[in-house]
């Protein structure tokens, strides 16, 4: 097996090297990939949509269908993780651990023992592979998470003018929740951002994207042709700002979908589908 695999890989690499010799040189401005379509996009992005960052324009406007179905793919991946891993029946662990808050003692309660009340102020449940309750990590993460979310909103909103956009901002928002879940524990995170919320928000994100396109259809233009939105926004017909706002609404949808799907996949992967004890 090893020899066969190595031989396949070497033959593949040799063929690729042979054909790579015919490629245009690295950094050549007149290569075919750089000449046909992209100059048109670059020269018209300010005129058409009033968005300096041409990557955002192409992503959400010129190639809007592509991005819409990519968002659907991401949502489908979240659903696939859910259906593969989620276990509804509660397989209770052999022993549970509780911390007595006033004294800091740790209690180990065997299966069948008397458990404290669910919302008890005196006892808090901790994971069996527990990390000690580190004040430094918890408070630093509490400080950082707010700034991460603020930066994520900046990235989503400022994607027209600088690198960024819905995908990056969504992943940043998701990773802030993941950071909370790592620094505290999974159950506390699930109380603040439930799995159902994640699923619904992901669907809402895709709905915002396709709904924007559908509104354009209702206004009498093609699907995802944001110029038709200008009467709704109180702009003159043909104003490029209509396209800019359309792109912004689409980016918000992408951010919702990506954020919730990242969190959803993390919930299912980190607890092996049980939502009982996390990472």
């Amino acid at each position: 097996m090893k020899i066969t695999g190595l031989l396949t890989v070497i033959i593949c690499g040799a063929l690729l090297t042979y054909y790579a010799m015919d490629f245009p040189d690295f950094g050549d401005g007149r290569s075919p990939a750089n000449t046909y379509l992209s100059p048109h996009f670059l020269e018209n992005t300010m005129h058409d949509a009033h968005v300096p960052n041409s990557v955002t324009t192409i992503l959400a406007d010129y190639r809007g269908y592509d991005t819409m179905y990519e968002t659907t793919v991401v949502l489908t991946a979240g659903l696939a993780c859910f259906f593969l891993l989620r276990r509804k029946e509660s397989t209770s662990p052999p022993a549970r651990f509780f911390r007595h808050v006033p004294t800091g003692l740790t209690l180990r309660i065997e299966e069948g023992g008397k458990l404290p009340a669910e919302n008890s102020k005196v006892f808090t449940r901790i994971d069996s592979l527990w990390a000690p309750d580190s004040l430094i990590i918890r408070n630093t993460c509490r400080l950082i998470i707010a700034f991460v979310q603020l930066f994520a909103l900046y990235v989503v909103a400022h994607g027209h003018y600088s690198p960024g956009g819905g995908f990056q901002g969504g992943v940043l928002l998701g990773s802030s929740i993941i950071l909370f879940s790592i620094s505290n524990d999974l159950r506390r995170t699930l109380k603040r951002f439930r799995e159902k919320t994640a699923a619904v928000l992901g669907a809402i994100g895709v709905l915002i994207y396709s709904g924007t396109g559908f509104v354009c259809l209702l206004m009498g233009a093609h699907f995802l042709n944001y110029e038709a939105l200008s009467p709704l926004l109180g702009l003159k017909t043909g104003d490029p700002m209509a396209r800019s706002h359309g792109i912004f609404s689409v980016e918000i949808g992408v951010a919702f979908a990506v954020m919730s799907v990242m969190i959803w996949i993390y919930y299912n992967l980190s607890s092996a589908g049980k939502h009982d004890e996390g990472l």
Partner: protein
Amino acid sequence: MIVLTVIVGLLMAVGLFIFLTAAVGMIRFPDFYSRLHPAGMIDCMGVLLTMGGLALFALFDGGISLASFLNFAKIVLIVVFIYITSPTATHAIIDAGMRAGLQPWTKKKDM
């Protein structure tokens, strides 16, 4: 302008030298905990010096304006967040190492 060039170049050179010492320390030190010491502490100093040089360059090169001040503020924010997060990360890693039962390296007397 020549003063700015000299100051920025000096800051960058000292910062890069500190990064070099951190890299050498990470390779040469004997065990986990002493290797994390340069990784966590000396990197902070190197970041402060190199980023400080870059921030000064962004602020004064080409005149002070709103755009250059915004660049300056962004670089200063990078330094602030590295100063908050990097020691916490080092603390967490060393904590994990202690709980995993790694023994600190000590100089053995009878060998």
